[in-house]
């Protein structure tokens, strides 16, 4: 605990509560913020992430929308262009694809196409990730689709603390931002300060310092990497874990610095390995730290198939502490 922290920093709440509380506080401080999405109003969201907002702020500011992902994002774009600060929800990250035109062709490009005039303080919230037996169309991690689009910003918080700070920064940012929650993390808990705070977009965090290998882990994979690091520590392997937190813009410096220190890197994400963000990160590391590398950068991700339903397949599909530890031993030639 640092000197600037207070007793409230020790308060423990869940990832889902952090999301909910942050929206309450942001809406209280800024009358231009409204929330819209399927089931977010009266019911409080399918995961209860929006619970209580409609009762507090009413139908005008917490809008139940039809099932209409394109129109939900479009609503946000148009309202943002008129100066409001919309938070629109896409429930499951898989539905991002349904709204992809509005996100990638419209929201992301409007400012550029208009010669800089448009300002879109729009935030899209959604839940990604596998592990709940939700099968191929409700389990995907699609960050690689989104980081390919200039004009967007994308965060994938790995703890309740980061969720609050990143969500706050995204909502206050004057660009289209996407906040991806991991649906298997909603019930996980951690220390979260009560008052609002920002985590700068594009600033990674070193979750754990170490000497032998750097693991760059995204979203829920941060905690899985921590579990792997524990096992590896028992074998005498010291692991450093870097959580980019924000995938676009990406904090290349922190990752490269860590690579220069440990000389070995394993990148872990839940998305399909092929064409995943791991490839982009590996490319940046070799561009800026090639001479420091003692082994090729390794990537751990999902196999090249849709997310399978059967728990027998899904449990092997998602990277686990074992597969991450194996990759770390691999870059150490052990």
């Amino acid at each position, binding site marked *: 605990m640092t000197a600037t922290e207070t007793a409230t920093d020790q308060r423990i709440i869940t990832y889902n509560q952090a999301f909910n509380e942050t929206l309450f506080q942001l809406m209280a401080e800024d009358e231009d913020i409204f929330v819209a999405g399927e089931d977010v109003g009266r019911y409080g969201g399918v995961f209860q992430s929006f619970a209580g907002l409609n009762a507090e702020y009413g139908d005008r500011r917490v809008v139940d929308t039809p099932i*209409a992902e394109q129109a939900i994002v479009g609503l946000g774009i148009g309202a943002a262009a008129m100066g409001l600060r919309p938070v629109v929800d896409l429930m499951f990250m898989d539905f991002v694809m349904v709204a992809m035109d509005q996100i990638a062709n419209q929201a992301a490009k409007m400012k550029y196409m208009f010669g800089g005039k448009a300002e879109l303080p729009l935030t899209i919230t959604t839940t990604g990730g596998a592990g709940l037996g939700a099968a191929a169309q409700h389990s995907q991690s699609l960050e690689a689709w989104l980081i390919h689009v200039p004009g967007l910003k994308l965060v994938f918080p790995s703890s309740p603390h980061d969720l609050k700070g990143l969500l706050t920064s995204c909502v206050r940012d004057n660009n289209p931002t996407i906040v991806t929650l991991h649906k298997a993390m909603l019930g996980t808990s951690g220390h979260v300060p009560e008052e609002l705070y920002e985590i700068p977009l594009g600033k990674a965090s070193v979750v754990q310092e170490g000497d032998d290998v750097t693991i760059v882990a995204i979203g829920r994979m941060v905690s899985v990497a921590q579990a792997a690091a524990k096992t590896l520590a028992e074998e005498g392997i010291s692991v450093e874990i870097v959580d980019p937190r924000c995938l676009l813009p990406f904090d290349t410096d922190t990752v490269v610095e860590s690579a220069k220190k440990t000389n070995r890197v394993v990148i872990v994400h839940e998305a399909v390995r092929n064409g995943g963000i791991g490839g982009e990160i590996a490319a940046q590391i070799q561009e800026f730290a090639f001479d420091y590398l003692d082994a090729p950068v390794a990537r751990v991700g999902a196999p090249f198939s849709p997310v399978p339903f059967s728990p027998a397949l899904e449990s092997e599909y998602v990277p686990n502490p074992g597969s991450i530890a194996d990759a770390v031993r691999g870059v150490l030639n052990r």
Partner: protein
Amino acid sequence: MATKKQPAKAAKQTKSASSSKIPKEVLLDLHRRMVRIRLLEEAAGRLATEARIPGFIHLYVGEEAVAAGGCAALTNEDQISSTHRGHGHLVAKGGQFKPMMAEFMGRATGYCKGKGGSMHISDLDLNMLGANGIVGAGVPIGVGAAFSNFYRDNGLVTMAFFGDGSTNIGAFHEGTNMACALGLPMVFMCENNEYAEYTARDRVMNITDVADRAVAYGMPGVVVDGMDVIAVYEAAQAAVARARAGEGPSMIECKTYRYYDHAGVSGIGKNYRSDEEVAAWKARDPIEMFEAQLSKARVLSKAAAKKIHDEINAELDEAIEWAEASPFPDPATDMLTDVYTEAS
């Protein structure tokens, strides 16, 4: 033949089994399809509660008359497209309990080898184009199947099942318009259960009857009592006949209700529907009402109906036992198969 949208109130009168000219075999077939769906779903709900079925399941209990009445108007070769709430559609199209239960449980012996689960359950051999995790996505896929019928001039018809909520998404409008513009042999079968997940229809639609939307695309739209299997069947027969005759698509809106939660048996919050509302719909249970009619018409006695339930339950018990004894898929060999069709 119903070719005009009827006011919703007209649907409240239940068609009588005795007065209709429907042959006895068809009446018994409609009954059996409904009971098969009901009992499968009750069992699936139980198994999910006991964590013997993983993931999300969307139960069809309460809506049986729609799938049964719709599919009974089709031949085996006709196609259907479906939704996330797809178990009933598959059963009504001839789906077997063993591979269904095995699929729900993620076993290698399931209809989809455990890869799809409840939300993607399908059997193309039965011309069922799959349950679907994306709301509205089944509608355009159904349009494609109907186009193949038109293209081959094979006389087959496609029936797309969809919920009230799905009619708010672009895919629905694109699909229905295209089918009407191309004059495809198609029936759009709406299950209006008044809710999309936990949100009431009137919060997200400014119309009461989904069938009103048919007018916008130039097809007839009718409203029927979706708790009355005869009403659904007769409307479906008329629409299927029209499609088969090359006269284009029709829409049927079935007013119905799901008894359980959106997903699973009971969800996180119950505040979105009143107990009175649920009870009022259950008082018009499609199976109980039909059995009362069949008994009165001396088509099926109460004792004979019970025997059918018992037989189906025995078949289910056997299917559950078989499914639970079935192997899981093997990650080492099954993870990467079925992504592509191998060159032959």
